[in-house]
């Protein structure tokens, strides 16, 4: 299947990346090239194969449900583009 300009714009929107019309146009053949190439995976017989989620056998560790850190508000905010009154600040979300 191949993707068109509308699809590229939709993917960009889902990715939260703004693109100009010219950028989106340029991406159509680029993304089609890559997606066309990965589509060869469709020819592999995967009957009865479980999808792999972990490469090296490991167990899910659990720890005691206790507080292990905290009181680092200023460190957490140290790199924020805009921090006010101990919070991350963003443009108005609700009118």
């Amino acid at each position, binding site marked *: 299947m191949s993707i068109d300009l509308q699809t590229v714009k939709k*993917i960009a929107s*889902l990715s*939260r*990346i703004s693109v100009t019309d010219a950028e989106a146009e340029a991406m159509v053949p680029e993304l089609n090239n890559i997606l066309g190439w990965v589509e060869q995976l469709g020819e*592999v017989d995967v009957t009865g194969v479980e999808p792999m989620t972990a490469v090296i056998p490991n167990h899910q560790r659990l720890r005691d449900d206790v507080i292990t850190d905290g009181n680092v508000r200023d460190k957490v905010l140290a*790199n924020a*583009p805009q921090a006010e009154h101990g919070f991350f600040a963003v*443009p108005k979300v609700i009118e």
Partner: protein
Amino acid sequence: MTNLTDLTVAEIRDGFRAGDFSAREVAEGFNANVAAAKALNAFIVETPEKALAAADAADKAKATGETLGALAGVPIGMKDLFCTEGTQTTAASHMLEGFVPTYESTVSGKLWAAGAGMLGKLNLDQFAMGSSNETSYYGSVISPWRRNDGGNAALAPGGSSGGSSSAISARLCPAATGTDTGGSIRQPAAFTGISGIKPTYGRCSRFGIVAFASSLDQAGPMARTVRDNAILLETMSGFDPKDSTSLDLAVPQWEANLSSDLKGKKVGIPKEYRPDGLNAEISAMWDRGIEWLKDAGAEVVEVSLPHTQYALPTYYIIAPAEASSNLARYDGVRYGQRDLPDGAGLQDMYAATRAAGFGPEVKRRIMIGTYVLSAGFYDAYYTQAQKVRALIARDFELAFEKCDLLLTPTAPSASFALGEKQADPLAMYLNDVFTVPASLAGLPAMAIPGGLDAAGLPIGLQVIGKALDEQTVLNASLAIEERAGFTARPDKWW
């Protein structure tokens, strides 16, 4: 007197302990080399004061008879993908320009605790996405190597750990950290005539490493000798409760157990790694490698990894899918750049921030990942890729019933000129054809230089081992190193 910056990690460690030279002399030597090598663009940030501080601490500890750390007196380079407390960490992106972590990555913290000093933060492909170091926001890294044709074409140091590979081969540091998601330690090592090992997935903690594709990302060392890699890997490895995929296993004594005697070992040669049209010099180097391992006592058998051809397309679904999730955190709110157009709302701010903060290759991969994870396409792309990944891992399991390790080329060619492959993303992706399969299976794999091609550029070999068997990988690499006698180094032009 010996030039201290020509020494290996082991020689620096031992010479410092023996009192042949001070740690400060070593740090000053490397600081001078770093300062004089701006033309290579290997460092994003230089930290000579940190290298000196660690050296002075080592000299003082030695003078007062304190116990010395495993890397006391050894300065190293740190790939700028590892968060370093108080020192800018960018992942070579505009997005994280000015980001100064308030915490230390586990791997870098272990290295400093062992006495190593930091020479600086090394350039890389943006968010570790690339095979030539051309996607860095801070400019391409230049390889110190040049073709012997008299031209001065700037060559790629490989990627994504291209600052590391360039700096080590130019003697700006004796060793450095790298990270490897699909070949980002091994391919740059091969391009610059050095060695580097990606350990088994889970050996090195991922805590504090800027995430690319979490099921594949592994840290590892890069250096000029196998012994140096063993020394660094011992310090970098170990269980970390802060990484849910960290392996809770003791760290083996890889250096003490180094042995190039391969009697009783079987080396598998995967026939699928020799496709029609494989570069003749790469093919000949592989044949030489086979003879070297036979000479070291190993028996050679042919094996088959039938799903090899599907490894790259599998990788280019799984890695972008994971990247699209991991990079969702760059939203202009908590850290990094923010682009807020006049009158823009929150959603517009996200989209504008990410458009301005990410480079073209990063955007491309985020969008591919978003597409293959989107409703209606998830099963056809992502689930199918996870299933093929299981088959690729099974290929290795079956092969390892017949052999103890595999020998293959590392990269399909020697280094290429900057700009040569940038126009076609697919051509660039093919660089990782020999390194990606071991990444998908989480296996330890090492790149080791073998010789120079007709153009005077390094080409090398890759050793792949069973999960957790880094020792055999290191030992076979040592056998190659001893027989290859690779002493070539780039002529200084920078």
